[in-house]
């Protein structure tokens, strides 16, 4: 242990970091605190972090009973899983082709991907809504999932990762008798787990928390995703049972927090894209 390890500079750096962390964590901590407060506590003039009357049980019971929390969570899981599976199934072969195969439209494809990155969902929401309405598929998993199955961000992320995979590896696989799909399944995917994990976090977080699109295509509560469910919850409660609302929010955010903590190491690996060593 270095005696001079804890110098003044280090102390300053650490306190700045801690200050930043506190600022970012404060709303979440406050949410946890509010979820345990009774109505009178929440609207009292003094601001306290520790609830004066512990009403976690009451609030959580309300959150779990008044709205069908299991339906919400289940819908969230189904929608996120479907979106992620389709995104990966489409983005990986596409990125592989663009990174490692030679074909004429490769340049054009690259330009299209870049353009795709620039177009937000808000720009295409209206035409999509009209189309889904005509097809009579509003209020379905299809409407929630379909617009996101092709992720240009995913293609871009995998493209960058696949470019680092040596060409010789692909050549060896071809000589060993693999088809192009075989190469994707047996060589590319097993070596792309860091990238897939990173993409999973981006994709799942974005679509688990998405309120915009579900709000447009879903009006039937049985297809509501968690954020949409919270909206119904607020409306149903005339907007003032904040304790129960925070408890519901806590339930909904917990799966993501847990998943991130579990996959943290892989997530960071994927972001830094250490790539393959020969």
């Amino acid at each position: 242990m270095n005696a001079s390890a804890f110098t003044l500079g280090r102390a300053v750096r650490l306190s700045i970091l801690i200050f930043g962390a506190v600022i970012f964590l404060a709303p979440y901590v406050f949410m946890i605190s509010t979820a345990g407060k009774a109505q009178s506590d929440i609207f009292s003039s003094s601001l306290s972090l520790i609830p004066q009357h512990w009403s976690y049980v009451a609030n959580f019971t309300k959150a779990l009973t008044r709205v069908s929390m299991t339906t919400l969570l289940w819908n969230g899981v189904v929608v996120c899983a479907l979106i992620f599976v389709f995104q990966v199934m489409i983005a990986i072969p596409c990125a592989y082709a663009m990174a490692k195969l030679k074909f004429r439209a490769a340049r054009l494809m690259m330009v299209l991907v870049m353009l795709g990155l620039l177009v937000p969902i808000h720009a295409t929401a209206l035409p999509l809504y009209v189309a889904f309405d005509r097809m009579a598929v509003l209020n379905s998993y299809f409407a929630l999932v379909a617009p996101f199955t092709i992720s240009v961000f995913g293609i871009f992320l995998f493209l960058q990762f696949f470019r680092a995979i040596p060409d010789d590896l692909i050549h060896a696989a071809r000589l060993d008798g693999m088809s192009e799909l075989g190469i994707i399944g047996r060589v590319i995917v097993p070596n792309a787990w860091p990238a897939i994990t990173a993409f999973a976090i981006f994709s799942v977080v974005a679509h688990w928390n998405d309120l915009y699109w579900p709000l447009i295509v879903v009006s039937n509560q049985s297809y509501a995703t968690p954020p949409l469910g919270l909206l119904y919850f607020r409306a149903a409660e005339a907007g003032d049972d904040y304790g129960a609302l925070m408890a519901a929010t806590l339930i909904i955010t917990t799966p993501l927090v847990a998943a991130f903590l579990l996959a943290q190491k892989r997530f960071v690996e994927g972001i830094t894209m250490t790539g393959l060593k020969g």
Partner: protein
Amino acid sequence: MTSLSLRGIQKSFSGNPILKGVSFDAGPGEFIALVGPSGCGKSTLLRILAGLESADAGEIMLGDRDLSPVPAADRNIAMVFQSYALYPHLTAAQNIAVPLVMRKLTRTQRLPVIGPLMPGQRKAVAAIKRDVREMAASLKIDHLLDRKPGQMSGGQRQRVALGRAMVRRPSVFLMDEPLSNLDANLRVHARGEIVELHRRAGVPTLYVTHDQAEALSMADRVAVMIGGSLLQLASPQVIYDDPAHIEVARFVGQPRINLFPSQVGADGTIALGDIRVGLRREMVVAGASVTIGIRPEFIRVSRTGQQGLPARIDRIEFLGSEIVLYCRLDAIGEPVVAKLSPAEGVGLAAGMPVRLDFSADRLFVFAEKGHRLPSTPLDATVMLETVHG
């Protein structure tokens, strides 16, 4: 036992010709080393043979089968890559098993969960495991089978790559500088092993290298490629002693061959000091520029003799079994390299004047375009008519 033949292979990348019509045959079980400086197109040729690139023109025949339309996966050609290209997520055993799994199991038998339930799958898998173990034993890597490539040394990876290439008994074996990532000691050792493995497998082998010592020491025949053309294909000895082109002479041999610019005299002979070389009259015209070449070991160095060209020693390199002298000719200022045995080099020092006596029968004459001109050594006193007659 099949032979391989290439006819007029051409390839250019974005208008740049890389291969300018390469043709040759490799007999059954022949080991051919493809040697040349980097960028001469030898690796491209190998890739075309493997089916990883397509040629612009020309045909590849394996036995009497035309390989050109056959995709890489179905050519039954194995290749060892410079980077070894082992699958990083698989163990050594799994790496070696891949070509067998892809060939001996059906599509459904390869599936992860359903596969083992398919009829005959167990038997096939057991056979594959046995083949892998035998291969590993013959390469002495049985103790590494459970390791992943990241946990192995360069030499060990190279063996696994060899195993993966050989285990399926390919009909042609290609190697792209497989030894260039090994350290010098290991490289010399691995040469012998590869030759031995080749002998056992008995299939035509094409071995690409930029190391002429590797090519000369390993191959039955050496193909020298320079600038996208095959300049000479012959046994190592012929390549060295009887080069067909100035680039071949320049590329092969360490230290490099000595080359002197010269001109054909009016009588159709070429003179270098007191040595004269006769050329066949129909081959040259008087006054044409030619280049004379002589290998360093055919130059005798003497301190006292009267024969030979006067020169001065610039530098001496002692290499243990031999001595390399870097000299400069007094008359024309051209550098000359001579190779001596240590006994011959006793008493020589930098700056010393010496006489360099060239063995006339070891001189090569090259035309201006680079091809070799047949020449006869002449004693300066011999009448020229004996040559021309």
